[in-house]
């Protein structure tokens, strides 16, 4: 201890230039190998064994994010260095989930964010493993997924899904024909660091269509200057005999930084609790992701490219009016391609430029995305439908600290979207079309001591063009106002936000067979824009050993759009049920999320987490809306093992119980759903010698419970979810 104090006293004399020293707030000893991020510069640094690191070329005012293993992440706004060494004290971490993180969208410290936002870490070695990216996202209270087996899944936020939920990847808006429940998110968790989940309407920052919520994914950071990191990871799941292999390489010089990730996944048909396999639930895909960064003085440049290519079987495909569940099951597990299937190929390119001024930041992001969707129903070489959807989005934003209490964020966003059918396809479900969006917004954030408020306004305009409708225009003014007040151990938050969504071309002009959902879909040109207003409250109680959050909400919609079955029969397509897009004059969703995390003082390594998600949706006649999820209770019991001298260490063991309650209030064309409980268990190990290896070993659905989720696309034909699934992952760190 004396030695460390001596080093601390000498530090200012030992270090040249501007440096940071990270120390424990209680013991005042250095925190070895703490990690530091200069947020504005996107630069990650690692401290040495005595917790110190040098900074070069930082602006006069910047934000530091300081983290260390076993410590709470800390955010510090540095206005100018008072001395050559800035000593940062970090507190020992008790409750892992109250980390202080900066919102990737607004640059506002998450704790101070007034809108309803949750930041979830992806690829967290201490979180229970899931089969796909949406499985991880859907562990957040209020968030679910609509899925078809394990190959297709898409997000549901507070009962809203499809076109009502937006997805961004590193600021790039991802368009992927999300109007259909079988068109899932096509990228994987490869190279993704976090996802910011905005619950409820949020057009202010994200523009038109952000009616039900937003998923904002952010890639992993670069490595520290003049270092290199590489690793290879493989994952295996017994249920679908799926294998997933990924490789990661990160390199950084003083100014240039480079990341590359590649992955391949292949899954056979999944097995249900009775031992049978669901025919054609197989899928395979490959991913390549690269990022090139350059920073010089106060200019930061990022070029990112991501390619995802997936071949996904469509299980449960039938033309029968009364299908038998056994028709879709087999005693043989297969992974060969069989019709019907989807081929999805995406390319995402983004170019980001950021200029840092003394008190402000100017950012311009432009890019290009393409989504090629091919659905084969009965022929291998001739697609049923084939469409190419391209998008050129742009986002210009400017944020400045007007004074120490007031921050102003302003920007302009837009995109040019085109959808084109390929002539090789047998059918055209959606006509060729294009749309142009632009919007502009302004947001003020005022903070003083325990009180913060935020107010913003935005104007959006969209023009949709297609031969069948000519040109249609939609526009709307939206806003958001919020307040946060912190007193003692309590934090109270409230937010009012609005959003709007013009009808999509699929909702207006669909007229044909959709092979993915096996139905004939018909749009309506009479549809009007949807509007939503949400009132959201949140109360936090937070001590070193207990965190409780209660978050009720009430959301009203005008012109709510949905799709419903009809009794119609279309000549030549007698085998397909006919669905039409419809609109209710008004609808409401309401509910609450409750989160509880207890960490007993007598058992410091034990964590008990529980969350409760409830949402109801009703139309203007108080009849239930379709696709509203079951109420869910998640319980997670985790034990963290401490320091161990052995080379092979056990890091954590956790037991998870997920309970979905009955769903009896359903839309007139839906069926009710039964309650069920699933138990999962997982242990994490590490082996350290010259290299480090991480091992994850777990079992999902331990008791081989048969369950059919209300949001499963296979529910109507009585096909259950996967039975017991033993999985492991080995992550070999090369350097």
């Amino acid at each position, binding site marked *: 201890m004396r030695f460390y104090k001596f080093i601390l006293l000498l530090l200012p004399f030992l270090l040249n230039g501007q440096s940071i020293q990270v120390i424990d707030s209680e013991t005042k000893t250095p925190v070895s190998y703490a990690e530091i991020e200069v947020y504005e510069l996107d630069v990650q640094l690692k401290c040495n064994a005595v917790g110190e690191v040098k900074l070069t070329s930082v602006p006069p005012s910047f934000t530091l994010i300081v983290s260390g293993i076993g410590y709470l992440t800390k955010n510090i706004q540095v206005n100018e260095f008072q001395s050559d060494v800035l000593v940062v004290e970090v507190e020992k971490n008790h409750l892992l989930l109250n980390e202080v993180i900066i919102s990737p969208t607004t640059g506002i410290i998450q704790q101070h964010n007034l809108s309803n936002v949750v930041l979830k870490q992806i690829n967290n070695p201490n979180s229970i493993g899931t089969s796909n990216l949406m499985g991880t996202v859907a562990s957040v209270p209020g968030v679910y997924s609509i899925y078809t087996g394990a190959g297709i899944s898409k997000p549901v936020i507070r009962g809203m899904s499809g076109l009502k939920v937006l997805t961004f990847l590193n600021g790039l808006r991802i368009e992927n024909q999300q109007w259909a429940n079988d068109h899932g998110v096509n990228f994987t968790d490869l190279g993704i660091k976090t996802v910011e989940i905005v619950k409820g309407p949020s057009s202010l920052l994200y523009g038109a269509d952000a009616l039900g919520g937003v998923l904002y994914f952010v890639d992993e950071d670069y490595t520290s200057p003049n270092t290199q990191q*590489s690793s290879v990871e493989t994952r295996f799941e017994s249920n679908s005999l799926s294998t997933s292999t990924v490789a990661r390489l990160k390199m950084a010089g003083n100014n240039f930084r480079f990341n590359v990730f590649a992955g391949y996944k292949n899954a056979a048909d999944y097995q249900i609790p009775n031992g049978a396999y669901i*025919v054609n639930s197989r899928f395979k895909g490959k991913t390549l992701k690269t990022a090139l960064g350059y920073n010089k003085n106060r200019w930061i440049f990022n070029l990112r490219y991501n390619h995802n290519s997936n071949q996904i079987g469509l299980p449960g495909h039938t033309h029968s009016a009364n299908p038998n569940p056994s028709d879709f099951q087999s005693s043989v597990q297969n992974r060969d391609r069989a019709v019907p299937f989807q081929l999805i190929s995406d390319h995402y390119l983004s170019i980001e430029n950021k200029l840092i001024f003394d008190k402000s930041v100017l950012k311009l992001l432009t890019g290009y995305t393409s989504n090629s969707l091919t659905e084969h129903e009965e*022929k*291998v070489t001739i697609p049923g439908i084939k469409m190419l959807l391209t998008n050129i989005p742009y986002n210009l934003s400017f944020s400045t600290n007007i004074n120490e209490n007031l921050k102003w964020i302003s920007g302009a966003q837009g995109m040019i979207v085109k959808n084109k059918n390929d002539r090789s396809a047998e059918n055209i479900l959606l006509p060729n079309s294009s749309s142009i969006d632009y919007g502009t917004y302004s947001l003020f954030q005022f903070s003083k001591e325990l009180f913060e408020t935020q107010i913003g306004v935005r104007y959006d305009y969209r023009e949709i063009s297609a031969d069948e409708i000519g040109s249609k225009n939609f526009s709307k003014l939206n806003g958001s106002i919020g307040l946060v007040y912190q007193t003692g151990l309590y934090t109270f938050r409230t937010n009012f936000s609005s959003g709007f969504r013009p009808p999509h071309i699929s909702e207006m002009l669909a007229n044909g067979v959709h092979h993915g959902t096996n139905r004939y879909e018909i749009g309506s040109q009479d549809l009007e824009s949807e509007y939503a207003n949400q009132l959201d409250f949140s109360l936090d109680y937070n001590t070193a050993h207990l965190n409780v959050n209660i978050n009720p909400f009430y959301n009203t919609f005008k012109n709510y759009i949905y799709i419903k079955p009809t009794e119609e029969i279309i000549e030549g397509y007698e085998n397909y049920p006919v669905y039409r897009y419809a609109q209710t004059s008004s609808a409401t969703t309401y509910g609450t999320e409750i989160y509880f995390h207890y960490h007993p003082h007598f058992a410091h390594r034990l964590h008990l987490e529980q969350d409760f998600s409830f949402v109801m949706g009703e139309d203007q006649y108080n009849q239930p809306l379709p696709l509203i999820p079951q109420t869910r209770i998640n319980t997670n019991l985790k034990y963290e093992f401490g320091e161990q001298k052995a080379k092979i260490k056990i890091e954590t063991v956790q037991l998870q119980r997920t309970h979905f309650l009955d769903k009896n209030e359903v839309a007139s064309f839906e069926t009710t759903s039964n309650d069920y409980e699933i138990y999962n268990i997982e242990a994490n190990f590490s082996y350290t010698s010259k290299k480090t290896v991480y091992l994850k070993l777990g079992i999902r659905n331990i008791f081989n419970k048969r369950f059919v989720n209300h949001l499963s696309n296979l529910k109507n034909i009585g096909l259950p979810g996967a039975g017991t699934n033993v999985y492991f992952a080995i992550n070999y760190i*090369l350097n």
Partner: protein
Amino acid sequence: MKKKSLLIKNLGMGLTFLSLAACSSDECAECHVTTEINGTEYELVELGEYCEDDLHDIEDGGYTIQDTLFLDAEGDSLPSPVIPGAANEVHCGEEHDH
């Protein structure tokens, strides 16, 4: 020596990336002739495996049966006989093990 080792590692990683990103294609499939009678689809004749261009041609052009068929491919009676005439629809790549 250290640089050489780094180079070999990077080459190894590069090869891993390339192998992960390598393309593969399934270009062969089992095909059969189908017809629809009173809204129900019947399999008429198993055609066996077709590959690449032949696969595309048979799916695109269909298959013309030569004789009147009274039974489907599994030997069950058809609701009404299928007579020779225009090319019948050919479906390929369906799962048959259930």
